[in-house]
């Protein structure tokens, strides 16, 4: 398959940046989107040009590093999958595909398609943990967790921190990410001790980083590669109210 690519090139954090057009030929329909970019980069290197910088690690949808805005959709046209899981057969031959980095003030571009997502780490450091003294591994059934809570907590825990929710939100809000983390811990007994402080601190950090405010467009849920439900945002809001009134 052949494609015309319009890729965002930006030399450094301070560089202006622009879309540059490339063509790639004879790409296997079974190639992943990242493999297609690898092939492009090989050609660029052979021509003595600077390869396109993009983030990736696991290439199997579990690490969350590969987020790209592909033809106006976070992680490409499919629901419930990350950029690395996208195959070129999802496009038509001779398609033009625009590839842009996540765009949000708290995610500054480092180079080309690579953005700095450490804002997420700082939100986690503000409260996305349970403070316990680590000792020996506790007995497996020492803390009973009802099945339905465990299920819901797992639904939230699958968040891979990719940032597609922020990238796709018209407000650049990180609510789905923060909600997934708050929700996961609020649903488990281990997280209860610190639930009041946690929600306030994580939200305060989210605001301080410059993310926007959620206006319930639910675009995040539609584009999240792990299909995290906005139900978790509702739970975060309940946690917030609970923390304020109690």
């Amino acid at each position, binding site marked *: 398959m052949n494609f015309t690519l319009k890729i965002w090139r930006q030399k450094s954090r301070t560089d202006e940046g622009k879309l540059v057009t490339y063509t790639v030929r004879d790409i296997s329909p079974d190639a992943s989107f990242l493999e297609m970019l690898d092939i492009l980069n090989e050609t660029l290197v052979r021509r003595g040009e600077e390869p396109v910088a993009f983030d990736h690690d696991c290439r199997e949808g579990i690490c969350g590093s590969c987020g790209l805005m592909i033809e*106006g*959709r976070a992680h490409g046209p499919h629901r419930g999958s990350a950029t690395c899981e996208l195959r070129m057969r999802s496009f038509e031959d001779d398609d033009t595909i*625009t590839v842009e980095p996540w765009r949000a003030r708290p995610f500054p571009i480092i180079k080309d398609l690579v953005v700095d997502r450490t804002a997420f780490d700082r939100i986690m450091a503000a409260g996305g943990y349970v403070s316990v003294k680590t000792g020996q591994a506790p007995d497996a059934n020492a803390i009973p967790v009802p099945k339905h809570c465990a299920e819901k907590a797992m639904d939230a825990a699958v968040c891979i921190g990719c940032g597609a929710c922020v990238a796709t939100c018209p407000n*650049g809000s990180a609510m789905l990410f923060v909600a997934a983390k708050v929700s996961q811990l609020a649903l488990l007994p281990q997280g209860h001790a610190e639930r009041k402080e946690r929600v306030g601190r994580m939200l305060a950090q989210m605001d301080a980083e410059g993310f926007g405010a*959620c206006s319930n467009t639910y675009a995040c849920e539609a584009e999240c590669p792990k299909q995290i439900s906005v139900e978790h945002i*509702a739970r975060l809001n309940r946690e917030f109210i609970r923390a304020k009134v109690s």
Partner: protein
Amino acid sequence: MSKTTSFLMSSVGRKMIMALSGLFLCSFLVVHLYINLFLFKSDYGVEFDAYSHFMATYPLIRPIEIVLFLGFLLHAIVGIWLWLMNRRARPVKYEVLKASENSALSSRIMWVTGIVVAAFLVVHINSFFITSRFLTPERSMFVIVREVFRNPWYDAFYVVALGFLAYHLKHGFQSAFQTFGLRGTRYQRLIDLVAMIFWLLIPIGFAAMPLYFLWAY
């Protein structure tokens, strides 16, 4: 930081102010529509005028009017504040963005529908409230309404603006319940039902009035 300031400083807190003030304004719509339905009674506005007279003269209504006005103001100011904050969060726009693939148009253009509703309110308050309360308080409200609605251009503007109100409420009403953390719970179906009444039936009820007057008088 005290609980109140930290609440107000939080983006979620500000959203809750939007939700609370929005629902408060919705409650006013119900009262307003109920009274206006008497316009449809074929008594040449006797009962409608009686209600209007009560509204204009009963002393308790004054503070309620002021609270209502402040409610509008609060909703608008916090709305603009959030909108500015959200615009700042994405200084560089995408070259290609397919937002229609992941979200409803009504949710993305609340600021547009909000501005149209605000403009409508200015015209609306001017033609009815100001006229009946200050300019010609002695005239029958029913007669004022009949005269205003005689202008088909005014009626067209009125109906279109109510369409915008419906669109504003389509997103806003259910959104308020998401903000209170009530969506996705066992109340979901009830919320959806009440939301439908608010965004669909109430604007239709209001839009029926100019159309009725155009047809009947």
